[in-house]
């Protein structure tokens, strides 16, 4: 049973998925081969946009958490919970694709490098948020506790970003935002930027879609309770 509103939402999702596929085709056929790494660098067109979406999710989680604290509404909490799920999804994807890229490039699937460890910490923090949400009964105390953790999670993002300059790491330093401008070929740079925009839009769509499910779940719970009382 799908309503007209659901159908419109699904059409938008399908369009965004088509854009993701289009970007992947550009990553394979438009972007030139990297002179140092060869073909394996094409994993970056999935890895970097996933990381940016994971970081953007934590910023969105902080915004929804602040809104939740101000308004004390279950609506903001539903959005925040959906954002934490999507953030976890993209953080795990970032770690997995980075690991797959690391094997042929660094010769190892995983190393406790500062960038990798702080990103792994972000995944754990998202898991902690979801566990906290699941463990507490609905109400003002859950809204407050989840909001505080949601704001704290965002504090990890600047640490992840600066980790490659603060510590000696195997991970490469920033390639895009650096003094003197990016050293990337324009085709590579623009394909990467396009991927970031598209994946962030798809992430936002996932957050909206999932948050409406959470709200529907709340409606179902309230309706079941009302029915029990009649």
């Amino acid at each position, binding site marked *: 049973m*799908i309503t007209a509103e659901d159908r419109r939402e699904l059409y938008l999702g399908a369009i965004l998925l088509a854009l993701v596929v289009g970007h992947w085709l550009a990553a394979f056929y438009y972007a030139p081969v990297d002179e140092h790494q060869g073909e394996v660098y094409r994993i970056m067109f999935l890895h970097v946009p996933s990381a940016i979406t994971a970081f953007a999710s934590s910023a969105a989680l902080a915004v929804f958490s602040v809104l939740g604290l101000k308004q004390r509404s279950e609506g903001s909490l539903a959005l925040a919970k959906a954002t934490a799920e999507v953030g976890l999804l993209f953080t795990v994807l970032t770690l997995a694709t980075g690991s*797959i890229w690391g094997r042929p490039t*660094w010769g190892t699937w995983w190393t406790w490098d500062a960038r990798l460890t702080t990103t792994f910490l972000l995944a754990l923090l998202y898991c902690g948020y979801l566990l906290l949400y699941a463990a507490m009964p609905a109400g003002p105390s859950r809204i407050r506790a989840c909001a505080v953790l949601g704001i704290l999670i965002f504090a990890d993002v600047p640490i992840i970003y600066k980790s490659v300059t603060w510590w000696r790491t195997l991970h490469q330093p920033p390639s895009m935002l650096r003094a003197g401008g990016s050293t990337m070929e324009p085709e590579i740079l623009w394909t990467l930027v396009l991927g970031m925009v598209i994946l962030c839009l798809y992430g936002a769509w996932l957050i909206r879609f999932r948050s*409406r499910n959470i709200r529907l779940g709340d409606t179902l719970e309230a309706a*079941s309770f009302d029915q029990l009382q009649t």
Partner: protein
Amino acid sequence: MNNITGIATDAQPFIIMAYSLGALALLGYAHWCLLQRVKLRQLVAAVQQPHSAAIPPI
């Protein structure tokens, strides 16, 4: 992409692995959300009918 310490070997299996995982994650989560939406719509419609027998009391 600068400052890469290693030399890429045969990349194809790694690229396929990464993009397959990406497709699985992006499609899988959306598909799970869609199935959940369908189920929730059915349950909400059933429970909002007065004295519905479709759902046993919780």
